[in-house]
């Protein structure tokens, strides 16, 4: 008698249900975590904020724009705050950058001291 080999034997129903349950229980939180991290661009935001602060600092130094304090909104969605304290032959410049969404959280603060002679102003 010729017997066909049982090659098509599949998973049992219980096996499949268990597999699906485990798969779903892992996939949902995992997907949420991965999605959360992908959407979280804090590193990129910090790099942009740094670039914004450097640009602001360069502009102040190049233009010798030593207004005591100023807050500006950057086109990339940052708030740039400049603080300049002059004493003697130097000016201490502080540039702080925060996000428009969370203005209370400062992303980057840069400080630079430059020489300023009164006859050059």
């Amino acid at each position: 008698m010729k017997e066909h080999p049982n090659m098509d034997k599949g998973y049992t129903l219980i096996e499949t249900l268990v597999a699906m349950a485990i798969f779903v229980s892992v996939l949902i939180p995992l997907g949420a975590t991965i999605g959360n991290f992908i959407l979280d661009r804090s590193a990129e935001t910090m790099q942009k904020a740094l670039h914004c602060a450097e640009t602001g600092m360069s502009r102040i130094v190049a233009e010798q724009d030593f207004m005591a304090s100023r807050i500006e909104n950057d086109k990339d969605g940052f708030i740039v705050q400049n603080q300049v304290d002059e004493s003697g032959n130097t000016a201490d410049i502080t540039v702080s950058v925060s996000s428009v969404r969370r203005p209370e959280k400062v992303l980057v603060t840069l400080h630079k001291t430059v020489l300023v002679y009164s006859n050059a102003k």
Partner: protein
Amino acid sequence: MEAGEPMIIANSSSDCESGFALPSILMLITILALVSFSVLALQYLQRQQARMEVAAVKAEYAAQSGIAKILSVAVQSEAERQYTFDDGSEAQVKIQPWGMFALATSEGKYKKARSIRVALAGARMTSEYRSALLFGNSSHQLVFTGTASIKGDVIAGEPGITTGTMQDYITPVRMPVNGNIRKEKSPTLPEIDESQRKIFFSFYENMLSGTRKSNDAQTSVVRPAIDAAGTFILESVSDSVDYVLLSGNISLEGQLIRRLRPLYIIIDGNGTLRRNTSVQGLIAMAASGEITVERGAVMDDCVIISQKSIRLMQSATVSGQCISPSIIIDSGAVMRYPSLMMSIPAKMSAGKGREIVLRGDAKVEGSIILLSSVNAPSNEDIITINHNSIVTGFVRSDNLMTLDGNVSGMVHAKDFYFYRSPTKYFGWLRSGKIDRTELPPGYLLPPFLMSKPQYEVLEWL
């Protein structure tokens, strides 16, 4: 197996597939876990990278700020300072003479980030340097003939200025001065601050005596053996060496760059920088004999000091300081900004006149200074700027000056002089041109020329 009994064929492959779901799911979970871990690690690294970038910028700004801070106070001697800034960064700064300028080295720190900046500092021009010409001889007139002209203000003695006639030269139809002429009873060249002068001359004296930092146990001094031809290969000097002491007439060959740690090469004899030799950065070379920079040799930011003479041959390119009793720049040689050519103190060149000569179409961007000795200057002390030579900057002679070339900047001269057989002419200009308006606004002078120098960064190294 008996006859008539059905044959059973075992199916081993279908048995193996039984229960494969759990391993496959576990494998999938493992893969997903690895993926999620990779994403987490990537995010962490990106954040760390961003934080490091911020820290690096803060450290860099701290280093620059440290230099600004130390330059903002009057520097009396070698000094070290530490500064802390509002953003938590700090800087350790050191200032010392580098030739006739000041060298500031600053290490900025923020968390684990470090940044080192080195700057050469000069002094801002004061009001004493606003005029195109200060003619310091109050006993006779300043005489213009030929094509001599001045664009800018002139300060002269009470005899004032005039035009004169000389054979083979055209006589100007009107006074060739485009600026104000101010007469003073006794026009004197700006005083040089003795304390500043001592600070910067100590560099020179210590270099020649080889005693600089000799008490410092950390100083590395080498006395390399020289071959029979007297050739010293610059590449053989390691980065840890501070002093190289050489004896005899030495030819220097090869390339050497020092950006952070100064290197002092002391030669007891003559020194020659051979063709195509390149020396860049904080390298000072002092010789008891003559120093020759051959054509094609390049020096950047270096200091060369000779007790006898320095000669820059045709096509030599130097950005640095030449300090010697006699300095000769051949036609075609170039000294780029910020350069300095300066006569040395009289006690170092006793018995000989001092001279600075620009031949042919030599070019100098910087300062040319011939200072008087404590005693009366020798009559041989003279700066000669030949007809096609160009200077952009400042020229000062406490004694004589032959000015036939062009100066874009300022000239302070005790007296002008040239010889045309059979006559010696004092106070005459025949083809020299001075244009104060062409001097770049940020031009800086050696600090010892000022009593209270206002330092500024001359060059970031």
